[in-house]
């Protein structure tokens, strides 16, 4: 489930990164898109909760 959510987030991030970075060159937009990817990375790095 963690991986599927991350994959969906990256699929959403792709057009955002492209539009803000390559098409409109918007620094604020690009930073937001990068924050989304950073969030995915932190989500992946976060330790799994150990079930008791």
């Amino acid at each position, binding site marked *: 489930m963690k991986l599927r959510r991350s994959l969906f987030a*990256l699929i959403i991030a*792709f057009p955002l990164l492209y539009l803000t*970075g390559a098409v409109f060159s918007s620094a604020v937009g*690009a*930073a937001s*898109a990068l924050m989304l990817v950073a969030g995915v*990375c932190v989500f*992946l*790095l976060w330790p799994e909760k150990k079930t008791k």
Partner: protein
Amino acid sequence: MFLIRVLVAAAPVLALLGGILWLRWRAFRAAALAWLIAVTGATALFGAGPVLLASASAKGLSLALLVMLIVWAAVFLYSLADDLGAVKVIARKIMSSTGDPLLLALLLAWTFSGFMQGIAGFGVPVAVVAPLMVLAGFSPVRAIAAAMIGHSWAITFGSMGSSFFTIGLVMGLDGAGLGPPLALMFFLPILLTGLSVAHIAAGWSGVRRAAPLVLVAAAAMDALMWLLNVLGAAPVSSMLPGLLGTLILWGAGRTSLYKAPAAPNHDLRSDRLSFRWAFLPYALLTVFSITAQVPAVKAHASGLRFALAYPAQTTAQGFAVSASAAYAPIQLVGHPAPLLLLSALVTFLVYSRRDLWKPGAAGRAWQATVRQTTGTTVAVSLMVMMALVIADSGMAAVLAQAAETLGRRLYLLAAPFIGLLGAFVTGSNTNSNVMFGPLQLYASRALALSTVLVAAAQTLGGSIGSGVAPDKALIGVSVVGQGIGEGEVMRHALPYGLLCVLVIGLQVLVVGILGVR
């Protein structure tokens, strides 16, 4: 200050390697950390702004899309063939050719995988061969590691020569001038990858036993590779040598030296499929792949593609990235994914007519594909995003500058390792050639070295590096399953790759000293 810049530039790759090899993280976790470090370093020390970083990350996802579509399609075709019973029939046929495990390992992991790399590439050989080797009785880790190192000789001229054409383009070299000497320099990698497979399969006794056969086969395969390049047929100069090697090993299995009766394996019997119908999906893939390379077909279909345009970018420190009108184009005719899916569709049509189709097979294959490929997709996406951040921010240029300080002779020794590094990180010989080709050109001019020799070093190292890259381990683990980790596979495969590249470096150094151009 330069040393600090080198360390910061190297940090993402070191984090990726350290995470996988020492912390034993899954690749997607190590890749996530590596991307974060790359973006932080590029912002803090290399003057990369958010627009450049977003554009570079999008380029990375464009490249990842190109690669992952192939993986999804290949895993789908394989899962379909497996569900229909075809894989077991193919395995029984190959395993019935010989009962000698050493010969079987060489047949599957070295020559047949090279043939598959020639026609498909992008990890398809690992996806196809590793499960066959598991069925043949090899442990999953050894099967994947053998397939990884075994097919790595065929990568530069594989995928119908895509990596070869790329290095020629970026370094301004004509294929006719680069191809034949490059093919000659492939003799040692072909030989060493064969001996590596023998060592994985049967240890040093296997190497001693296989050495004469591997030497003969490698010489024949390399001679054909050279001849095909002289004739201008670089696109098939992995596929046909792979086929020749397979025939040589097949014939050797019938001589008294290597003949061994195949062990009966009742588990693999199938009443439904004969070998020719079981091999149909891959025969179709071969035919479609060759047809797609016919110049007339390519010319007519060249407009049928998906690609995004990326503008030029510049960092605050003046490092410039040129614009691309069509980055990482996905050709409808020529890209392996449509060809793989077309092979699956025609297989469905033929099997349905012959009452060989199983209801629900496509759905089950799709579910297996999603289950097995999601983790790989996330990992590869993050890795390639990291690689493009490193390239577009100027961090890669700093690493190449550091390599130049080694001097002429040490640079010749190091040049293949630069190619290996790029391919290892991106999982692609082509991407490595794109990323480091211009810098290798810059270094060859600055150090007055032969550009042909340095180009050969770059793509030779990239070929081996791509074969043992983490994404290939991920592909193997995805297809084989059985709960093994890619780190364990990497620890088996990487030492062989590093040894091969060291020998390539020594070869390049000797050729450079002798002044051969």
